Structure formats: C-alpha cells, structure tokens
C-alpha cells in the first residue's frame, strides 16, 4: 500500500480541503508526522504553543484540573485539530491534552504557520477563517454541554 504524503493527508481533511494546492504544499512544509503514546501529554496548560496537531489515528482528552480533580471536557479523535491558542499572543496552551489511545498525528510548527499567515494575508485569511469556524463549533458544543440537556 502506498504511503500517503502529508499534502495528500491534508487535502482529505475538512480543515484544509479548501486551501489551494500552493498553500497545502507550503503548510505541509511546516509539518511532520508525530506519535504520542497512551498516557503521554500532547500539551500542558501554560506551556508555549510550539506545535498544533491534526489527529490521524488515536484519541486524546482535553482536561482541566480543578480542586485536584481532572475533568474531561472534550475528546478529539481522528480528523480533529488539536490546539488553536497558537494563533494569538500569548500563544500558551490553556488546557492539558492527554493521550488515551496511541496517537499518530500531523504536527505543525506553529511559528512557521503563523509567520506565513502574516506574510501572505490571503493564506492567513483562509487559515484564520477555518480556525474561527472551529472555535464557533467548539463554542456551540460547549454551550450545549452547559445546558445539561439530559439532566
């Protein structure tokens, strides 16, 4: 079986699918394959956002530590993007993300992508628009969660 290239993998994902080929090729240049074993942390709250991730396989949980108790608020899996705090200063992670099933992901160099967004505003518009859509979707989901509709 032929191994897919990073640009091919990006084109298959909803987040990147509308990007022109040149931009896909560019952002692929900021990316590499990464693996995280079960139990490891993909990111920790307070740490600088050096990378963000597109999950290929596996699953993680976004956790918040409150009163010495970890509460899980979201569980990104295949096809999901992990991390958007890199887009704006101070670019530090707000939550812990812990792996619950071994993860294979595409890791993006956040500084590389951010710099490109600033230099090429059309590319930046595409990326920030998709990030905004993602944030809105998460905000909607969080609001529904807050409704406690199954209570």
């Amino acid at each position, binding site marked *: 079986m032929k191994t897919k290239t990073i640009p091919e993998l990006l084109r298959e994902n909803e987040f990147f699918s509308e990007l022109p080929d040149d931009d896909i090729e560019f952002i692929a240049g900021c990316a590499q394959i990464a693996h995280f074993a079960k139990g490891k942390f993909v990111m920790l709250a307070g740490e600088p956002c050096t990378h963000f991730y597109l999950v290929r396989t596996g*699953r993680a*949980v976004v*956790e918040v530590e409150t009163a010495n*108790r*970890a*509460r*899980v*608020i*979201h*569980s990104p*899996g295949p*096809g999901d993007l992990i991390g958007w705090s890199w887009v704006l200063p101070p670019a530090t992670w707000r939550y812990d993300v812990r792996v*619950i*099933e071994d993860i294979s992901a595409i890791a993006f160099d956040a500084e590389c992508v951010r710099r490109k967004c600033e230099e090429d505003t059309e590319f930046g518009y595409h990326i920030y628009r998709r990030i905004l859509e993602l944030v809105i979707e998460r905000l909607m*989901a969080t609001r*529904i*969660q807050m*409704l*406690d*509709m*199954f*209570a």
Partner: protein
Amino acid sequence: MGKDAMVPATMRVRRRIQETADTFTLELEPDAGTFVFEPGQFNQLYVFGVGEVPISISGDAARPSVLVHTIRDVGTVTHALSKLRKGDTVGVRGPYGRGWPMEEARGKDVILAAGGIGLAPLRPSIRHVLANRDDYERVVIFYGARTPEDMLYPKELIKWRSRLDAKVSVTVDRADRSWHGNVGVITQLVSAARTNPSNTIAMVCGPEIMMHYMQIHLARLGVPDEAIFVSMERNMKCAIGRCGHCQYGGDFICRDGPVFAFSEIARRFRVRAL
C-alpha cells in the same frame, strides 16, 4: 386492549431492573400472553390509587411475550412505579401512537440517534434494524448521555458496538479520568455518520433541545427534513386524541405522533409555549 379504550388491562411485574440511579425497567407479563406493538409506540401505565403516565415501550417488538418499559423516577406516578416489585400489578392501556418509520427505512442508510433516556423509545427500532440487518444499508447508532453512570443499557451497547455491520458511537457530556470513551455533545458525532444523505432515514429521540441541534447537524450533512424523524413528548392524558392535553398545533401527539417527520412539525418546533 379492552373494548373500552379508557379501561386498563392489569399486568403483573415479571422483573424490575435498576438501570441507573434514577431510572429503572419494568418487564410485564401481558395478560393475553402476548402484546403486539410497533417500535416507537407508547402505553399508559396506571398505578392504582396514584395515577397514569405515558411511557414508551422499550422492549423487543419481535418478542411480544414480555412488555418492557424503561422509566425515569421524576414524578408521583413514576415514583410509585419505581416501588413496584415482582408480582405486583400495574394497569396498562395501549399501544398508542405512530411509531418509527421502519418500513420507510428499508433499503436505506439508517441513523439512530438517542440522547439520555431517549434510548428507551428508540431501542425497539435499533433491535429491529439489527435483527433484520440485510434490510438496511449502512447503520449508524449514536448515543449521548450526561455521564458514564447515566448511560442506559450498557451491556447492550457493548453488544451493539461489537458488531461489524453497524457503526456505534457513544459520548458523554462530562466524565472523569476513569472514562476512556468520547467526551462531548452527541451532535459532534454526526459528521462521522458517512451515510448517503439522499438515501438516509434518521430517527432521533431525546430532549427537544438535543433533537433541535441534531436536525441542524443532519441538515448540514444533507439529510432532508422529510427523512429526519423525531419523537415528541407532551402531556398525554387520554392517549386517543380526545382530551386535547397533548395538542401540538393541529396535531395530537398521542394520536398523530409521537413520531413525526421533522418536515411535518418544522414550523412549530421549538416555538416557545407551544
């Protein structure tokens, strides 16, 4: 059902199962030996001396020798029902209402989405689809619960999940570290349905707010409102379309529902105080 639609038959409790902290299942012995119903229909359960409540039938339509209801202990009558034990009697009127579109779904992709105790009214259709698997194309089951402890029928969910011919995804709104499954709202599962939207029937059961968001997400996938079916709940009393307590616009939920195509009720859905 007796000649007088308002007179309940009496049935004995065969078994009582505590499902979650506030939800239990009663298995009843039909007085006539069998009780025939369609997935999605409901009965009026009567606790003598206390009162009557509408409860969806949650058992297997292919096994009419036992009548099953899963009930949440939230009011006077349901609390009295929760106190029933093996051998106790309960009054039963039914079955009532229009059920899930099992015939219409034949030959199509089927999405069965339940939230909270909404899995109980949907379980007969899930069992039907899985028992007659060749009659349907892709089968996708979504279930969302408040917490892992609030999930209904966990053993059956595991059984469904072990099948290779159905996609079953479960999520909870919140959890601690001991839970290793999905966390997030049920609507977030929908994008993974991978059904053919023009040949899909979706059956959705849960709180109205959940069905509202599910419809939005299913519509985004391209599933038309005519193919999205929801089970509505109102204050059913007579269950035969006479008393008007469950009037919903021009329909009586007890007689014309409880299952409606979303297209039939779209203009009324989520209208405040309706």
